[in-house]
């Protein structure tokens, strides 16, 4: 069975500092991964996705993530955050060949950007 662990429930950072939100997964088969962002009182918005190919993927708003198969990780990074990046971020994993109900979400990381 698959699982996703977001190692930090809350990450406070100062504006213009770099940030890394960590995500580890477990799966015995070929996977695809997502990061979603949820701004206050809104739905989830796709930030970026890894389906196959290049392990470094770029998303919206200057975020990027690197798929590391040997470490089963998919950490999200941004070199310089803005106040507007304050939101909750969710990592999700699915496996190719699984059912359409197979996408598993982590419990979320709340990013708080302080001036």
């Amino acid at each position, binding site marked *: 069975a698959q699982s996703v662990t977001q190692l930090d429930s809350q990450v406070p950072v100062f504006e213009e500092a770099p940030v890394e939100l960590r995500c580890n997964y477990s799966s015995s088969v070929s996977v695809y991964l997502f990061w*979603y962002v949820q701004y206050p009182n*809104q739905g989830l918005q796709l930030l970026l996705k890894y389906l196959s190919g290049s392990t470094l993927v770029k998303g919206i708003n200057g975020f990027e993530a690197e798929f590391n198969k040997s470490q089963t990780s998919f950490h999200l990074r941004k070199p310089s955050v803005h106040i507007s990046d304050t939101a909750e971020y969710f990592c999700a994993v699915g496996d190719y060949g699984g059912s*359409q109900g197979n996408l598993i*979400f982590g419990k979320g990381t709340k990013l708080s950007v302080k001036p």
Partner: protein
Amino acid sequence: DAGITQSPRHKVTETGTPVTLRCHQTENHRYMYWYRQDPGHGLRLIHYSYGVKDTDKGEVSDGYSVSRSKTEDFLLTLESATSSQTSVYFCAISGTVTGANVLTFGAGSRLTVL
């Protein structure tokens, strides 16, 4: 929210009453999902549908039923609401790309059961 409408957006009800949440899509996607979001639990799948009249259970399906009589509508019903079902409910649709399940979410429905 990319052609997904959830209704109602907010509802307060009492324990034991039936509740139906509606998800309507204009994207003609085959797959539709209902998730609930609770603090400390992230998103958990309740039920999903892979076509008209075709549904399957998710991780937390107890106490919920679903129906899909048209491609565009996916209904979530709580037959007898309980306080543990107080949550934010999200509908999602899937535009499957090369076998990957890429979800697009609605804006959410906040349900409070007193």
